[in-house]
Every structure is written in C-alpha cells, then in structure tokens.
C-alpha cells in the first residue's frame, strides 16, 4: 500500500510538471488566433471621436487617430502585459521599458493629456519638437534608436498637428513614469544616463 502511494505521488508530480510545461508551451496562443482578432483592438482603441461637435476638429482628430495607429504609437506607449500592450486601460499612457544594447533602457512616456503625469501642460510646439527631433521640453534628447523620431521627422506639419489634436482628445490617465533604474543590466551607459536624468521625473512638465 505504501509503495503504491509512493508511485502514485511520483507519477502525479511528473504529470503535473509535464502539464505545467505543456501549459507554458501553448499559451499565449499567437498562432491559434485569427489575424483579425489581433488587428481589431489596435484599430478600435482610443476615445469616441464622434462626440466632438466641431466637424473640423473631428476630422483632424480622426486623421490623427489613423496616423497614431499606423505609426504604432500605442505598441510602446502603453503598459505592457504578458498579452501585449494594455491598450484597454493604458492606451498611450506609457510605461513600457525599451532597451537597446549600448544605449540603455528607457521607459516610454505618458502621452495622454493628464496635466501632472502626461503631456497636458506641453504646448503644441513642445510636442512638434519632440516628434521631429526628439528634444523634450527639459532639453534632453530622446535616443532615436528607441523612440524612432528620425524615422518620424518626415511627417508633414499638418499631419503632426492632426496627431496633436487627437492626443488632446484622448482620455487623460494619471500614470507617473518613473525614471528607469540605471543599475539595469542592459544599461550600456550608466554615467551618461544619470547625468541626463538627474532631475526627478522627466515626464513631468517643467516650468518655462
């Protein structure tokens, strides 16, 4: 009887381990989902623009939404989960850690119009500048290999304007972006990094 229990225990444990690995192996089921199930959320994310009363502003915001989708902004500017960026709750609210060897680790900014933690206090000019050449209002330059501003610097002024109009209509989300930990092993340049981020919170608006 004792021997039977022992064998039963061992095989149950083995089965459990196998089941656990099988479980790990099969989720998340990227290849089992239809492409349309992936592309749905990306296009539908964002605020209800039909409520904007001025037709001109609505048209601009719709264009901005389209461009934000094509530019894949929310892929990085949303808090990541194991299932991908959390675009249901943290759409454009930032918080993804992004690294490049030799360039260090950065955390994406909160782009929602929240005044304290987002870009609510940034002027149109501030947003336009960071878009074209990665220079934030506090003067630090976003590394172009993490936030691809060099690839985005070709946008026409009118399209950037449409994006700004759209961003101002997104739901403000209070989400303070912490400065990343410089001791992160992927950080290539701790000294340079500390110098750049000597301030408290780089996403917070600075007095002009």
């Amino acid at each position: 009887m004792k021997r039977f229990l022992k064998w039963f225990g061992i095989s149950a444990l083995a089965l459990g381990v196998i089941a656990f690995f099988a479980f790990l192996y099969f989720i998340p089921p990227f290849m089992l989902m239809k492409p349309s199930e992936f592309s749905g959320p990306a296009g539908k994310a964002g605020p209800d623009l039909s409520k904007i009363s001025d037709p001109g502003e609505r048209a601009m915001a719709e264009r901005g939404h389209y461009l934000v989708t094509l530019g894949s902004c929310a892929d990085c500017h949303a808090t990541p989960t194991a299932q991908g960026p959390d675009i249901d709750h943290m759409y454009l609210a930032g918080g993804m850690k992004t690294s490049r060897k030799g360039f260090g680790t950065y955390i994406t900014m909160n782009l929602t119009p929240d005044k304290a933690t987002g870009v609510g206090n940034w002027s149109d000019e501030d947003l336009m500048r960071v878009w074209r050449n990665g220079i934030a209002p506090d003067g630090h330059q976003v590394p172009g290999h993490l936030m691809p501003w060099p690839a985005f610097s070709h946008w026409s002024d009118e399209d950037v304007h449409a994006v700004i109009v759209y961003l101002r209509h997104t739901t403000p989300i209070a989400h303070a972006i912490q400065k990343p930990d410089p001791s992160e092993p992927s950080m290539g340049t701790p000294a340079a990094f500390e110098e750049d981020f000597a301030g408290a919170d780089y996403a917070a608006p600075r007095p002009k």
Partner: protein
Amino acid sequence: MIKRLAAVAAFVAVPLLTHAQTIDGPALYQQRCAACHGKAGRGDGPFAGLLDPRPRDLTSGRYKFRSTDTGSLPTDDDLAASITNGLHGTAMPSWKRFLSPEQVSALVSQVKTFSPRFGSEQPKAIAISAELPSSPQSVDAGRAVYEKLKCGACHGTDARGAGAIARELKDDWGRATVATNLSEPWAFRGGSTVRDIFLRFRTGMNGTPMPSFLGAATEPELWQLAVYIKSLGRKPLWEMAGQEVSSFYAEQAKSAQSDPVRHGEYIAQITGCAFCHSPFREDSTMIDELKYAGGQRFDVVPFGTFVSYNLTSDKQTGLGGWTDDQIKTFVTSGVRRDGSRMIPFPMPWPNFANMKPQDLDALVAFLRSLPPVANRIPLPQSPNIVSYLTGKFSMLILHKDPPLWTYPGNAGAAAVAASSGSSR
C-alpha cells in the same frame, strides 16, 4: 571602450550647459549636433541615415541658406540664424530655447572649423535693393517671371512641387532631393518672409539644383517673383475649421492618387519602414546602400530570431517575386506567401491592418519603385525549447516584459564594407 562610452554619452545624454562659465564649443557640438551631423561634421551621425533631408555635411562648406553670393560661404549671422531658428519642416530644431546666444556663436565657430574654406575666404553679405511691396500688379508680374524662369519645370505649373523633372532632382551628394511645394510657406526651410524668399533666388541654394537666378532675371524681377511666391501660400490646417477640414482632406486624398509613388513613399516614411528594414553599424549609423534592403536582426524573447525582410524590388531576395496581393496580405495580416504566419511583433501588422486601401496601394507602388538590391534574408529561427520555456516562464509567471533585442550589422547575405560611417 572608454572612447565608445564617451561617444554614446554624447548621443544619449544631452544635458544643458547651464553652469558653464566658458563655453566649450567642441564639447557642445558633440552633445547637441553630433547625433545627426556626425562627430567630424560629415553629416553622418547615427540618425543621419533616416533623415530626409539629410543633415548638412559641414566639411563641404556648401550651405543652402545664405545672404552671400552663389557659391560663397555663409556669414556667421547666416549660420547663427539657422541654428537659432532651425530649418522648418526638418529635423533641425530651433535651438532658441535651449542655447544662449553665446552658446550659438560658440557653435558657429565650431562648425566653421570643419571646412578649410572658412580659413581662406571672407564671406560678405550681398547688398540687396529695397523690398517690393505686395500689390496685384507685382503678383501678376511675378507670375510672368515664374513662367519666364521656368520655375514650373521643377516646382510644377501649380507650384505644388510636382514638376516634370521633380523626381529626377539630385543634390551634390547624388541623393534624391525634392522641389519645395510653394503653397506651404510654413515648410520653407529658410523662412517665409518675402525677403527670405527673395534671397533664395538671388543667392541660390548651394549643393542643390536650385541656382541663383541673378543674370537670368533682374533684381526687381526677382522681388516680383518673391511677392508672387508669397501670395501662393494656402491656409494651413491649423487655421481651418468646420467643413473646410473635410474638404481639405478629400482634396489631399485626390492628389495622392495622382502620384501614388510619392504618396507611398510618405506612407513608408510615416510608418517608419526604413527604421527596421535597414541594417545599422556598430556605431549606429545606417548602412545607406542597404536602406530598405532589410537585414536588421531582432531577438524576440522567447519567440525566436527574426531578420527584417528585403523590401527592394530584387526578384530573388526582395519583394520583386511577390505579387501585389501577397505583399498586401502580409502587411495587413502577417501571413507570408507560403501561408506561414508571423507573430504580431516586431512587425506591427495588426496596426497596418487598419491601413486605407488607397494608402496600401500607394505603399505597394512605392516599394515596387525601389531599385533592386540583392540581400538574401535568413528565415526566422525558433528558439530551442529550453529558452522558449524559460522565456515564457519569466514572461507569464514572473510578469517580466518580454525583451526585444536588436543587433547591429547586416544579417542578410549582402557583403557590407566594415568601415563605420564616421570614419568613411
């Protein structure tokens, strides 16, 4: 190693020099300018490859925006104006807010050290006649000058920048350049006052196909032309309201259809195709000859190794052998032509699934226009089962963000010169 760290520091950290008593021009240049203009001013910084227009090669002494005669160097004031005001519509920002006038003049001195011409030549601003006030007569006269000087050959008869030879224009470095759309004055790089516009005709834009027109026309005629160009400026989007905006977008969509390759290039630029579909060197400069030819390697933990595909029209290794429908299916659903599927990253096809059909058509038309470059791309590689399971464990159980690594160098088959961009 120290040297490399210092170089990286210059790009990553761009702290304000607020406490500096004496201004260290060379250091300020490395902090503020080298990311695009390169460490030695050759216009080959890490971000240069993705920029259009390219950052100026400061060693050549050829500058577009001057108040000096054609072929001459710019004055210190010209250089300071470009740094202070920026070049509108490009990645060159206005530094007014971040640099003091003293810092700007330190940078002017630094920029001048890159070209030996500044040692031997004394640029002098030209004397120009009084500005012509705008009137219906001067605008009409300017229109006649526009025809006489054949401005429309490049800028188009409608002045929208799509003239007959606009697509063939090359600058002195052999790179394609564009004829400015004259109906959008806010994007005039050198400024949009009548005087700014006049100076471009009077002095030419060195290094570009835009010549000085002095001689072909008299100075009063050039003033008339400047007044006419100024009058072409349309209302910008940010001043429009109501139905105006919708009709503006409708008109834009219509003109996009008349030139799908140009529109497709814009779509490729705003979606950032070249950012992944081009390889970069160790020092992060783009390998120019392989722009759009793929070869950048991505490790997507725990899903394996992916190399960005060759988008040029090469028949064997690029998109030349793909049909339009196969390209569109991949871009919008991640399904390859052999029926296999791509995970939803690093290529963000779930976002591109929202692309409007006319934009998708234009994008394909642009990709077809890319000259063929042979660069055979290896197939994606799955990780071994141990790293796959540990990767997934840390992602799902430990809730660690799945890391994505990119690597320098070309992972495709095309041979690439080992020399780095900044030592060319």
